[in-house]
């Protein structure tokens, strides 16, 4: 009896193990169905600045290097080869040379060569004859002086000075390699890449369809026959479509904590993850407009903030306090809590507000004579809601603020004209990297430095950290800069939001990036266990 029992148990165990092994074996075939939150402005990644484009388009392309698609935290250590097989820095760290993969073909059958890499970066740097309609990340390559080729399989980036972050930028989902032989205009409507999926069609308000690239240079991949993005603008409908199984996956970052809870209640088997997306909600103050040109007033405003309340009210607790770079543990470069709490406005709210009121009284304001201001923001819920809470918080320091909702399309034009006093804005970081964050948002003269904050001393530190090759030394410099930026009230960070994404349990190999919402959509080894 005992022997029979053991034999039976062994047989059952063996069957289970075989079943488990079979279940883990990737299967080919099937169409991954995902809902998309909107019609993207185009599918030319280089011309856009939203993951509405990256999510469907990243699978069409390859980069020279990419972030390991299964390591949630993007960092210099998780960069792996893509179209490049290897890379090497010159001794003085001003040249970065890539050896390129051979035998790779574009979706239209033309062979990929080093010239395509050069063309791509000439386009990005504005030195090519063909032009992008928009070039939002031109600044990323400000220190690249030239891109040279040697034969078909080697390309070198020449830099004005060392910039370790260049590799991080090249690994971003924002940096695909484009073909030389396809005009930039065509890449907006019918992109050609070397990636695991070929573009089939994009119908406004309807769908985006990708099909498997049968000649993909990674043999055996992709597993999926295709990906279909159904554009569902109404989030409530999208959630119901997911629960009903009309789509296998929600759009990245689109699920709030409350919606994730709702999905789990209706579909307990759904796999959901809530992660930071490296998008900060921040305060922009017009530094040229009196009385906001007074640093004391800006300090008082920073001291009035109760970030925890903002996070609890707006995000049901799913957010983080931090500086301009995403805070740890997900963020690589963000200010650690012990430094953060030393910055005015990040400590004891009650004490900070008392201090703020004292400043305001000194400046001549009181409960009877408050400072009347307008808080401008985009007329979208993600902007408007925190602005409303912010207005309430300002009341505690004798600031009587009024919401000025601005029609979305007029927002940047208004900011550019400096036609605002105080505003609330959202800033997304394509990569978790100090160069991108500092130069783009705080550098004198940058197109995205909306407040025109300009600190020449800090600018020197930007360059110093950017050229620093010792990671530990660089991190210290980055923290010093970030602390100074927060103390200056350059663009006070209210919070870094966390958002959710859900997929059905049969969608395998899905990894959600935890410090960027722009880099994790290659989907070449996602498979469906159906």
């Amino acid at each position, binding site marked *: 009896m005992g022997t029979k029992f053991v034999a039976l148990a062994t047989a059952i165990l063996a069957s289970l193990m075989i079943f488990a092994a079979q279940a883990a074996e990737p299967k080919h075939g099937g169409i991954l*169905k995902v809902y998309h939150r909107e*019609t993207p*402005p*185009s599918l030319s990644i280089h*011309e*856009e*600045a*939203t993951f509405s484009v990256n999510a469907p388009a990243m699978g069409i392309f390859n980069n020279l290097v990419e972030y390991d698609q299964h390591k949630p935290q993007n960092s210099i250590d998780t960069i792996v080869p893509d179209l490049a097989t290897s890379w090497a820095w010159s001794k003085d760290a001003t040249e970065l040379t890539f050896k390129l993969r051979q035998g790779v073909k574009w979706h239209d059958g033309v062979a990929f060569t080093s010239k395509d890499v050069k063309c791509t970066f000439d386009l990005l740097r504005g030195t090519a004859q063909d032009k992008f*309609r*928009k*070039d*939002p990340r031109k600044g990323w390559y400000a220190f690249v002086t030239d891109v040279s080729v040697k034969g078909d399989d080697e390309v070198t980036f020449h830099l004005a000075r060392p910039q370790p972050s260049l590799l991080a930028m090249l690994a971003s989902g924002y940096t695909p390699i484009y073909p030389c032989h396809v005009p930039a*205009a065509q890449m*907006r*409507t019918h992109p050609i890449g070397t990636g695991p999926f070929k573009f089939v069609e*994009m*119908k*406004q*308000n*309807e*769908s985006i369809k990708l099909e498997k690239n049968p000649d993909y240079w990674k043999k055996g991949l992709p597993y999926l026959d295709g990906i279909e993005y*159904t*554009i*569902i*603008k*109404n989030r*409530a*409908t999208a959630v*119901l*479509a997911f*629960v*009903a*199984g*009309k*789509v296998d996956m929600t759009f990245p970052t689109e699920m709030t904590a409350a919606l994730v809870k709702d999905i789990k209640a*209706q579909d307990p088997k759904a796999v959901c993850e809530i992660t930071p997306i490296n998008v900060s909600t921040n305060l922009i103050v017009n530094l040229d407009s009196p009385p906001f040109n007074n640093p004391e007033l800006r300090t008082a405003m920073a001291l009035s903030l109760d970030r925890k309340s903002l996070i609890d009210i707006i995000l049901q607790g799913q957010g983080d306090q931090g500086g301009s770079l995403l805070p740890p543990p997900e963020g690589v470069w963000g200010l650690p809590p012990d430094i953060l709490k030393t910055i005015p406005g990040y400590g004891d709210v009650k004490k900070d507000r008392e201090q703020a009121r004292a400043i305001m009284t000194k400046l001549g304001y009181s409960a009877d004579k408050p400072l009347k201001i307008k808080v401008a923001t985009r007329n979208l819920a993600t902007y408007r809601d925190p602005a409303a809470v912010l207005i309430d918080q300002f009341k505690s320091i004798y600031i009587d603020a009024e919401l000025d909702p601005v*029609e*979305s*399309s*007029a*927002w*940047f*034009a208004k*900011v*550019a004209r400096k036609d605002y006093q105080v505003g609330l804005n959202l800033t*997304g970081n394509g990569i978790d990297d100090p160069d991108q964050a500092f130069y783009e948002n705080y550098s004198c003269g940058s*197109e*995205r430095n909306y407040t025109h904050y300009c600190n020449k001393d800090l600018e020197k530190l930007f360059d110093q950290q950017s050229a620093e090759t010792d990671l530990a030394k660089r991190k210290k410099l980055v923290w010093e800069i970030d602390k100074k930026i927060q103390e200056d009230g350059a663009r006070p960070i209210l919070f870094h939001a966390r958002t959710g994404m859900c997929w059905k349990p049969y969608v395998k190999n899905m990894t959600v990036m935890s410090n960027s919402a722009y880099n994790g959509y290659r989907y070449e080894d996602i498979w469906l266990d159906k």
Partner: protein
Amino acid sequence: MLGSYLIRRFFLMLLTLFGISVLVFTMLRVVPGNIADILFDAAGMIDTAEKGKLEKELGLDRPIAVQYAQWIGGLAHGDLGYSYVSEKPALDEILPRIPITAKLAGLALLFSILFGVPLGVVSAVKQNSGLDYVLRVISLSGLSMPAFWLGLLILMVFVKYFGTIPIYTDPPQGFWSSLWLYSVPAAAVGFRSSALVMRLTRSSMLEVLRQDYIRTARAKGASDSNVNYHHALRNAVLPVVTVIGIEAAFLMGGLIVTETVFNIPGVARFLVEAIRWRDYPIVQNLVMFIAVVAVSINFLVDLLYAVLDPRIKYSG
């Protein structure tokens, strides 16, 4: 007589359409922002030089009168221009969406007539009865329930009890597939329309039922159904036809909420999206198309009056 009336109406229609074209064209340009603003906004950047180049490329730097003349000139030759967003011919973007909305609107209208008219008659004939009260509550509910709320409620019920939802994720294949996909949203829209038609039919019927000729018909011994449906309804239906005509025109462009909730890629949702992008060629041409439909339906309704009421004569 009828010929001169038709000619006069035709020219009036042209005049109306011209007025609409000027209005739409001007209003679009009065609204702040254009496609260049929005494209650069989407890219999170402000580059006035590059924006200027794009405006020039799209002809947005030209005087408004010149832009209008170019549009109307193109329209006369069947050239609707290119969508600023998709960079495809506007006609190719607009045409496939028309049958989608036409099917939805047609089904919704059918629903509203099939339910609204008979129930309105019943409600009037059985005035102040229990049935009348029930029907009046239903019609009031139809008028007061927001379409957005009702649509979502229907979807939730479908998910809960049938495990699926009738939303548009792929183009339907075949008649039954189409019917399944469009009938639920059509019923959601039709519920409101039928409530309107029902209330109007009821009040119109009540007015007619009090007329002397109805009393005469009853005195002559005509049956209830003969009086109600032959004598009363025929005379009561004129204002109802007007409302149905207005509803039909409204449904071609006014289904934004239903198309959004049920994710139907029709004309109305496309129009709103095009307005958001300031995609002028799409908005202008789509509004003109809706205007042509509305004006034509209005004209047909006028002609239908003569069929329904022989006393109506048209004169030039």
